[in-house]
């Protein structure tokens, strides 16, 4: 009964405008928060969205299945979901699509039929980052390999990339640890590991700047750290900390919203929208880094503010983080 539902949604009540639901399972994570801000910003910019309902609750697939069900019952027209699992959400997502709801998976892909996907090329992200790091280390040594959350597609895809890089660098050994994408926990683990074992480099899945802090805390001499465009991390690199940023824009949420809105308006967007990451380090990309760094912004901010053709919001719309009618 997809059509019937689509007619009786809160959206149509609000004069032909759409309601977009957002489901996120990492509350309070700076990057994820900005992702949600981007959804709101894009919705405002589009002018056709009446409301954004964001459910941001710490948890795993179980919790997310319930959040998605609640959003469906709530009668949203589209759902932008950052999935906690590649497959476990499929039944509920497919149920949503059957009810005529547009579903866009951002940041991580889902394998559900008919779901749109807007992601950074996570496999490439992992590969590029690892290759940069291993090269810095001269192809030998031990890497502290700080992954995100077990089972989350973004993490497993990056792992696939890292494994490819490892295959070519036989001299590298890694110690795998899990950070849950929690900056603080990552910092603490790093202090433990770096002060007990001897490492020549640290690969982080985004929990970057606390690891650089940890290196100071542990009182060891600096070693290269890789991460993403976290404002504080960029600052550290500019100030001479060895390491590199590999772009992983949080505004991918905005891209997801863009795709969702196009689909709702009947323009047929591609099922897959994939961004290719690029590596910036203090030597090759100093200018870009300086351009991206903004000491006034919060240290957790992910410093990419627009993607040509995929986002239409302004920087202020993003940083204000207000959805339509808020």
């Amino acid at each position: 009964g997809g059509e019937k539902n689509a007619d009786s949604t809160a959206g149509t009540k609000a004069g032909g405008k759409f309601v977009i639901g957002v489901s996120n399972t990492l509350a309070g994570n700076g990057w994820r928060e900005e992702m949600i801000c981007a959804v709101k910003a894009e919705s405002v910019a589009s002018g056709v969205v009446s409301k954004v309902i964001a459910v941001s609750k710490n948890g795993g697939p179980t919790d997310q299945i319930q959040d998605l069900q609640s959003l469906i019952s709530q009668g949203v027209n589209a759902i932008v979901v950052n999935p906690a699992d590649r497959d476990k959400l499929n039944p509920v997502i497919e149920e949503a699509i059957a009810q005529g709801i547009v579903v866009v998976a951002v940041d991580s892909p889902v394998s559900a039929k008919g779901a749109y996907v807007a992601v950074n090329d996570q496999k490439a992200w992992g590969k590029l980052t690892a290759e940069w790091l291993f090269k810095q280390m001269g192809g030998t040594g031990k890497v502290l390999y700080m992954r995100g959350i077990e089972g989350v597609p973004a993490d497993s895809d990056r792992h696939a990339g890292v494994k490819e890089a490892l295959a070519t660098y036989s001299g590298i050994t890694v110690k795998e640890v899990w950070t849950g994408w929690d900056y603080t926990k990552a910092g603490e683990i790093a202090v433990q590991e770096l002060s007990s074992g001897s490492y020549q480099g640290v690969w982080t899945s985004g929990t970057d700047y606390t690891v650089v802090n940890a290196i100071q805390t542990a009182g060891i001499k600096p070693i290269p750290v890789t991460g993403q465009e976290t404002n504080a991390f960029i600052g550290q690199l500019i100030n001479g900390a060895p390491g590199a940023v590999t772009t992983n824009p949080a505004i991918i949420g905005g891209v997801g919203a863009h795709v969702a809105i196009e689909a709702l308006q009947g323009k047929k967007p591609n099922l897959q929208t994939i961004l290719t990451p690029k590596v910036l380090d203090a030597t090759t990309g100093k200018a870009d880094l300086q351009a991206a760094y903004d000491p006034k912004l919060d240290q957790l901010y992910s410093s990419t503010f627009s993607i040509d053709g995929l986002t239409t919001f302004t920087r202020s719309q993003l940083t204000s983080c207000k959805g339509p009618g808020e």
Partner: protein
Amino acid sequence: MTAEIALTTPTQRLSHYISHRPVIALLGVLTVLFIVTGMKDPALFTTQGIRSTLLLACPLAILAACQTVCMLTGGIDLSSTMIANFAAYIAANNSGAGPVVSLGFAFLVGAAVGAANGIGIGVFKVNPLIMTIGMSSVLVGIVTVGIVGDGFLSGSTALLPLVKTLGSATLFGPIPMSTIVLAALSLLIIFGLSRTGIGRLIYATGDNESAVRLAGTRSWRVLLVVYTIAGLLAALGGLMFSGISGSVGPDQTNSYLLPSVAAAIIGGTSILGGTGGFAGTIVGAFILTVLNRLLTGLETTDAVRQIIYGIIVLTLAWFYVRITGQRTD
């Protein structure tokens, strides 16, 4: 005739000796563990190794202090880690306003939540477990709501330089600043528990609340004070923990909840109240920290680490029951 005279066999004498001075036995355990770990991972004996041990034991010991004072009264504080996280966020949010305001707010929040626990437990006789579980659930909600979107905690997450210094800077050689904080705190708590009126009443309340009442003390006042202190300690623990990584997280210390209780139990404080002390708890915290390092060195998974934690806590608790002969059933 008294139990003392009845102590005939060496084992009895030993167990009696230990049951009165668990700290000494624990220090033995710690030393052995330290040496074993060091042989596995010589870096431990370096300045770096000792320093990191001190550094990582500090927040655990402080959170364990919070459990110790509560457990001595026969209670427990399962909201301590959420208080810690909350306070850390408050401090970070207000870091712009300078140390006094920022820390002031953080400790105020800690004390307020603690006092709420104390009133519930002391005045309304709410079971400590329930009270603090409920409180922790409330705090989880408040903190999450606060940090998502433009919530009231969504402000700066930058850490106060002072906190960062206390949490991670070095005083000299292998001694980090945090050790000084811990040392000062330990002296305060140990003195407070053994040499002040409230300390006596804390033990007495845990041992026999009706005796305290019949002796003319309004025991709810004792509990109010205890849980307020616990709140303050939790807040401090949260700040020190943030100091290590120079950041704050909504559930940063949650993985420390069970270990903090474990440290107190290992340290010989009875969860039924009346016996134990902070000296043992500190050693307990160090034992867990060194153990953690040993397991890290052994490249074990979190899984194995947790299992070993559990087994050790259970064994020691059982051991204490055996030597003190205080079964509960």
